[in-house]
């Protein structure tokens, strides 16, 4: 087992997909044999509180989401660098820790800047 960790992960993935597909397939079979599907123009229209849906849902969206995504991306990358540091932390000297603190502070600076600019306030 330990020598093939990914094999287990792949097996789990396959199992999980099968777990999802099996009931869907069963439901499909059920529909095939017993309960016929009855699609229709009204039934398969978009739901909107009982009204006919006006306009498209696929519209241009609010840029506020984008700002958060950028900040998230930056911090996600930061986490990638923090993780090895954290693992090695117990064996590291104070100097290395301070180096990481500097790394952290540099990023926090960006955060504080964004905060002060009012970016972290959802529009």
């Amino acid at each position: 087992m330990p020598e093939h960790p990914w094999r287990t992960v792949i097996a789990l993935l396959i199992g999980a997909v099968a777990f999802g597909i099996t009931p869907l397939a069963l439901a499909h079979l059920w529909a095939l044999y017993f309960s016929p599907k009855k699609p229709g123009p009204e039934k398969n229209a978009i739901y909107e509180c009982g009204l006919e849906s006006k306009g498209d849902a696929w519209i241009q969206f609010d840029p506020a989401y984008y700002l958060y995504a950028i900040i998230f991306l930056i911090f996600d990358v930061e986490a990638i660098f923090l993780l090895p540091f954290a693992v090695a932390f117990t064996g590291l000297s104070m100097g290395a820790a301070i180096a990481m603190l500097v790394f952290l502070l540099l990023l926090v600076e960006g955060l504080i800047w964004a905060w002060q600019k009012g970016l972290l306030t959802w529009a």
Partner: protein
Amino acid sequence: MNPLSACLIVAAFLFCVGLAGALSRSSAILVLAGIELMLGAANLNFIAFWRYGALAAVSPFHSLTGIVFVLFSIGVAAAEAAVGLALILAIYRYTKSCNVTQITELKG
């Protein structure tokens, strides 16, 4: 073909797919995506050489260079993606288009 060259071929193909996309697609976003793919291909090369290259055997001091390089590369790519997409957004705001050809046309 040994594993290393297989990796390199795959990376080269990936790079070229990205290149083809970046060159032929008119959407600036996809151009950026193509560039990301090319960066990914480069990362793959780093990893391949780290894994199969002789460097690790030669110098334990440099055994992790490939990995660390990929980490840095990921960081740079992320920064690039953030700024690039923001740029596209900013351009889109003024030209109402992120079509590369249109943008150049508009600039005259």
